[in-house]
């Protein structure tokens, strides 16, 4: 019974997601068709983007709840909505955004090379990445967790992989994949890496692997879609603050994004973005994380 209800909710959520996206487009075409010329400091990134009235944003196309390019051909999700808030603050209409797919492993490169103007793609802030780029935010704090089959009682946390029998799946070049390597005994026989988490989930369902590990919000998305099959094993064992990636030297732009995020915290648009997207998977939003101005 409950299962059926969940399925219905999920279906409704998917539908609503589509509707919301459409609604947004409609309203934005009304308000922002011409864009606004705001005044920014001369020579700053904000001024350049505002003058150009065009922006390239990197996000994921395969992350339910955060950045998923669905049948409409437009990406939808929390990252996408946050990016839209920032773009709006720059005085650029939403339909002038060019979305660029940025899978985990290319995110630093596209920022450094200038392929995109900023990246919002479940992008964990860490020191190694800060060597090449800079982060605004965080705007959300996730944590790595483990997805297992509903009837599995043998995996209780990352330590369950230490005896060398349980097999775990993650995505090439991602932080969770690197993190879980600390726990598995033999990478060759215990770790499977694919290019998307969908494949990991299918492998878990088919029984080729015993667990999938990545950030809890992503896993919650899979549970919401198929509550009869999956559950989380234990608590989050890392903290993954999601930030907005910008060029390393571009402190002005970083501060601007931080200001925008704080504004979005207080005027409720941040919470609305969450509720419309990933919030539907049942993850806790909690209090807004304090932005880190370093």
């Amino acid at each position, binding site marked *: 019974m409950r299962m059926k209800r969940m399925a219905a909710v999920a279906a409704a959520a998917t539908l609503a997601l589509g509707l919301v996206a459409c609604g947004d487009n409609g309203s934005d075409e009304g308000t922002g068709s011409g864009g606004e010329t705001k005044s920014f400091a001369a020579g700053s990134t904000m001024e350049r983007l505002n003058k150009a009235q065009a922006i390239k944003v990197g996000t994921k196309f395969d992350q*339910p709840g955060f950045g*998923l390019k669905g049948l409409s051909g437009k990406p939808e999700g929390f990252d996408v909505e946050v990016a839209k808030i920032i773009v709006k603050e720059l005085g650029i209409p939403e339909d002038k955004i060019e979305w660029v797919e940025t899978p985990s492993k290319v995110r630093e490169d596209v920022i450094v090379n200038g392929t995109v103007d900023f990246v919002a793609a479940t992008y964990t802030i860490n020191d190694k990445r800060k060597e090449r780029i800079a982060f605004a935010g965080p705007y959300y704090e996730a944590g790595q967790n483990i997805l297992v089959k509903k009837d599995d009682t043998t995996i209780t946390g990352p330590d369950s992989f230490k005896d060398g029998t349980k097999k775990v799946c993650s995505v090439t070049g991602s932080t969770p994949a690197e993190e879980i390597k600390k726990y598995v005994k033999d990478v060759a026989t215990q770790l499977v890496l694919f*290019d998307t988490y*969908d494949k990991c989930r299918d492998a878990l369902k088919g029984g080729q692997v015993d667990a999938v590990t990545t950030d809890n919000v992503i896993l919650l998305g899979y549970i919401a879609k198929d509550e009869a099959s999956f559950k989380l094993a234990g608590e989050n064992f890392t903290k993954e603050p999601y930030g907005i990636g910008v060029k390393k030297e571009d402190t002005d732009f970083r501060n601007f994004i931080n200001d925008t995020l704080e504004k979005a915290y207080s005027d409720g648009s941040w919470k609305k973005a969450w509720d419309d997207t990933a919030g539907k998977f049942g993850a806790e939003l909690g209090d807004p994380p304090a932005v880190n101005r370093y």
Partner: protein
Amino acid sequence: MSQQNSVLYDVPGPRQRRITLISSVVAAVLVLVGVYYLIYRPLDEKGQFTSELWGPLVDPGNENFSLVWDRIGIGLKNTLIAAVLAIISSLVVGTLIAVLRIQLKSLTRRRFTGLATPVSYLLRGLSVLLSAVTRFCVEVFRGLPVVITIFFVARGFPEFGITFDTLWYLVIGLTIYNSVVIAEILRSGMEGLPGGQAEAAAAIGLSPFQTTRMILLPQAFRIMLPALISQLVVVLKDTSLGFIISYEETLNIGKQIIGALDNPIQVYAVIAVLFIAVNYSLSKLAQYVQRRLSRGRRTAGTPAQNPPPAALMSQAESSGQGV
């Protein structure tokens, strides 16, 4: 092929035909039973045949049908764009490389008489060096997986501050590999021509370059046309590697559809059918061209030319098979 078959065994008599018929029927029944128990039943048990999974792909009445096919259409268009650009640039670059290698080869044999000794030695050394360098490049790019070439282009170019759209990374990656293969096809086509062709050209006073351009290259193109068309099939298949660098070709779009609808097996099955249909018609075209060419030769009454070496023909078909 049919000629070869008919000489391998006798035309079956009535008894043999009966046996064949009976055993074919038995085998067909066995296959059907096997398919049912090994493929259909397990898939059915896992609910892989439900209209929920297949509907968006095959049922025009489904709410998502037109959305899904719009997306697949975009993917096919992008695949074709990348394939056409790649094959055109591969042909151009490949021809240039082939001509360059042939020219360099004749240069290395030249003695540069009439020039001061050091200059002639310098020139000979230079041509030998250039010839070695081109040979090295050809060997290296022929020996690397296309996946790696595409990946290197997409990661390496930006490293040196050169950035394009993903489409161009894919096209450049495919061109690097396929132009080298095409160059080798053309070169061996030119070298496989009867020696009299080049000799006659030299006798009427054509320069080596003119000989290549006016005598050798056109003939090599003609002989190698089927192999070149087969290479097109290879390129078309290779564009599917675009998913590595997030180029939105058919397979990548398929991945996005799977993300929305959760029907991987069904989507991949449809994509497989699409690829097979397009590539099958292309290889049929190659066969047709080959038939026409050989017929054309016969009716013209010219002596049969040396067929291209078997190795190269199959290399054209397979070495690039890189997916």
